[in-house]
């Protein structure tokens, strides 16, 4: 059983790193957004540093949405999904493996790059680690909510287009607590731990709900 | 090496960045060159380049 789980995980990571896999797409898009926002707001570092965490979180959220429709669509189109359905591995574990692979190629690099990109928005030094921590803990929720929605639209011919619209409202709580935890690290009345722990809870819940929803969606979308 | 002054850390950091990025670039290009040379040699050694003899399988 675990061999099949690791096989899916390894295959997805290999596909993401091969040419055309779009593995580093999320990271480049994240950099692009964090560079674009100051062009809209002006080069004033004081303003930027106040809303730094918000820019980083919105950038991370959008970057994770763009590659999402390929999560199951690729397998649906070439028939790999039928192979996964015929596997000894329950569909829930297969979805868990794919969601984890998606997070490892999008959420994790974003969280690691956040401190460096924080420089662009004059994020103070002491806030860098907390912001990265909130992203590290919050992005799995985005991956798995996204996986659930991606499974729903996998069968539809142009399903990929409506995916961001489906996923965005579901990610509001993660965005709220992610940004408020990061702002708490900048100082302010709320202690850092409170929103951070809620964010962790949201992620854990999203992993379970997303996985079950995706497996259910794949089961009868034949 | 004259004394680097108060900001020595930043000077060393920037030269470290140069060595890391440039070193990484040089390494990746040389490794890729070597890998392609080996792959090409191995393919041509199996006589695929010359279409003359079909017998070789």
């Amino acid at each position, binding site marked *: 059983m675990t061999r099949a789980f690791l096989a899916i995980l390894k295959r997805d990571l290999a596909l993401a790193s091969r040419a055309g896999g779009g593995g580093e797409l999320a990271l480049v898009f994240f950099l692009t957004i964090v560079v674009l926002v100051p062009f809209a707001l002006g080069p004033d570092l004081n303003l930027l540093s106040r809303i730094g965490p918000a820019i980083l979180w919105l950038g991370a959220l959008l970057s994770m949405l763009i590659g999402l429709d390929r999560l199951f669509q690729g397998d649906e189109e070439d028939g790999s999904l039928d192979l996964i359905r015929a596997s000894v591995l329950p569909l829930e574990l297969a979805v868990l493996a794919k969601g984890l692979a998606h997070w490892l190629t999008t959420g994790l690099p974003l969280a690691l790059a956040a401190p460096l990109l924080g420089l662009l928005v*004059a994020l103070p030094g002491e806030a860098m680690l907390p912001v990265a921590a909130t992203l590290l803990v919050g992005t799995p929720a985005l991956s798995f909510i996204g996986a659930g929605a991606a499974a729903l639209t996998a069968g539809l011919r142009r399903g990929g287009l409506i995916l961001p619209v489906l996923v965005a409202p579901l990610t509001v709580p993660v965005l709220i607590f992610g940004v408020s935890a990061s702002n708490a690290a900048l100082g302010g009345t709320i202690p850092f731990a409170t929103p951070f722990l809620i964010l962790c809870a949201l992620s854990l819940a999203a992993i379970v709900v997303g996985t079950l929803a995706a497996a259910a969606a794949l089961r009868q979308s034949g | 090496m004259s004394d680097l002054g108060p900001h020595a850390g930043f000077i060393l950091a920037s030269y470290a960045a*140069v060595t890391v990025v440039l070193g990484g670039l040089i390494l990746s290009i040389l490794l890729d060159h070597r890998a392609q040379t080996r792959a090409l040699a191995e393919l041509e050694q199996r006589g695929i380049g010359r279409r003359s003899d079909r017998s070789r399988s």
Partner: protein
Amino acid sequence: MASLIDLANPTRFMRYSAVLLPWVAGIAGVLLVVGFYLAWFVAPADYQQGETIRIMFVHVPAAWLAMMFYTMMTLSALGTLVWRHPLADVAQKAAAPIGAAFALICLLTGAFWGKPMWGTYWVWDARLTSMLVLLLIYLGIMALWRTLDEPSQAGRAVAILTLVGFVNVPIIKFSVDWWNTLHQPASVLRLDGPTIHASMLWPLLILAVGFTGLALVLHLVAMRAEIMRRRVRTLTILEAERLDRLSAESAPA
């Protein structure tokens, strides 16, 4: 035999580059050693910036090379689209990572220079911001190369993107300058300061030529690797076709 004909040109390139490489590498090496020696031991500290001026000796050549390589990619793009030169898209694909690396070096050294000067690693200074946008364009071009794996079709698409990018660079430069003057941040010390004293100009020029030599060597090696990669790809397809014919004739047991 078609595959052998279009190789005539690249094969000649492979021969010439093999001869050229050791010389260019040697010259670049010497220049770099001399340049760094002058820059570190001979050139005096700047009366304003003190020792941090040493960073300029890598920051400025990196900026020049980042822009020079993009210009070279634009010429290669013209080579692909207008004169259909078979080596043009090879040159273009090989140049992108090198240009991006020098843009990144320019930004990183700029940040480490900025901290002692302006108190923060990053300031939305017009030149640094333009370099950052140039880096984004480089990353876009490299991403496009990675998604299209079929060489000739990819070459044309990237050539068009490079040309579009080249047309945009001056526009970006102008708009960033205009954007930058909107809210004049804390007084920004001019990067290159007053006219550079001769004792610093020489090491800078020597280093610039040395770095250019090094970049040229890397570019030639990268081009050789790219040509071989395409040859390997063609041979692999030939191999697959041959096996297809082979197994079609002799029906297996």
